[in-house]
């Protein structure tokens, strides 16, 4: 896998006004890069063309349809930060995507800050973030259901209803 991809909220990655230009909002770290057991959940992908699969994995695991913001960095840039992602099964109903999940383990304050800076640089360069709009997300899930990659029954109620009506249209 060439990239690690993380679900974020783009609005949290704009610098705060009235501070130095390269500042990173605390919310970006404490909410968007929230760790569990000092591990950060990310998804891997081979190319930027596969970002749709990551959005599908993320959106289909939720319980309501919203936009999905993602950012990504090259896996090759991680060893310099002392970071090594490990494969762990992903929490998504799309079975063929479960193996694309990674955990970045043993994160301490320095490493999570370094990682945040790396994400912030990429996002602010303007090329390493993507927002999947709500209709795009709906279409990704609908297509996955049509292709039998995902069962309607595996979706949470609100999403299932939305996809069902999309299938009937």
């Amino acid at each position, binding site marked *: 896998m060439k990239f690690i991809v993380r679900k974020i909220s*783009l*609005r*949290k990655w*704009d610098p705060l006004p009235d501070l130095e230009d390269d500042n990173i909002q605390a919310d970006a770290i404490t909410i968007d890069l929230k760790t569990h057991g000092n591990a950060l959940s990310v998804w891997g992908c081979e190319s930027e063309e596969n970002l749709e699969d990551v959005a599908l994995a993320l959106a289909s695991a939720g*319980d309501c349809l919203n*936009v999905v913001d993602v950012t990504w960095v090259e896996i090759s840039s991680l060893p310099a930060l002392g970071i090594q992602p490990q494969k762990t099964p992903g929490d998504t109903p799309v079975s063929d995507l479960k193996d694309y999940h990674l955990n970045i383990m043993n994160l301490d304050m320095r490493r999570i800050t370094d990682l945040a800076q790396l994400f912030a640089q990429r996002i602010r360069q*303007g090329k390493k973030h993507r927002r999947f709009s*709500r209709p795009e997300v709906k279409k990704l899930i609908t297509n996955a259901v049509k292709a039998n990659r995902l069962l309607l029954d595996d979706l949470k109620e609100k999403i299932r209803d939305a996809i069902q009506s999309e299938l009937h249209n």
Partner: protein
Amino acid sequence: MVTYASAGGSTCFKEPNHLVGFQDPNRFVNSGKLVCQYGLAWGAGTSPRRMWEDIAMSVKKVFPDVEILSTINYESKIPSLIVTKNLSFYLRDIYHSWRKACFFSATNEADEESSRSEKHLNKESPNKAPRFAQEICSLISLQPVENGFTHPAEKILMEALANQEEDVIRWIESILEDKNPYLVASVISCLGRVTEKSHPAWAINIVGEALEHSNVAVRDAAAQVLESWETPQVLGLLSKHKEKVPWLQEYIGKIVIQLSSY
């Protein structure tokens, strides 16, 4: 001896599976076993913020695996301590453990003082936010509104809309003036979700106003709501909006194209 005491018990709310909150230590003592599946909120009206930092450290010593989430502000900027743990426990035991450990001492005198302060607060604040507003703000402070996941504040907002719509409208209009853009954006997101199918005219007006907010987070929340409503009714709002932040400008452009095709 420094006496720590909670406020006079103005808030006691329970959201099944999400939150149990108390402000009065007497309620801990009197309430017996309570199942606290998500968290414990403890607030004080008259105590300095430092007190809560002390309690946070004390709780951590007594219950090492309890996660201290954050401190929050109620509508009157009352500092509060939030402790979370996904298990059931006896609140009475926690209260006595704190006392036993000399980390926390509540006296009748302090309680009376808090109670007096609270009465004063109510007397001085005739425009105190309604109960549903307090609960929504507390829940948003506890847990961020995240894309793709239902937020517990949505249920409170939906119930309030069913029972006291006028109050809700007034409150949401007033929240647009709040200094905390994080709170404003979160409330707008919740509003969008609970009115997703109906999107009444008053909600369109409020979200339209939010789209012109000075903070990008609020504008983004508003744009996402307008997209989620999937109605060409909001095209005018989006088309006339002049966005300076490139990624949001791009997103709004996309929504306009999508909605124009309906």
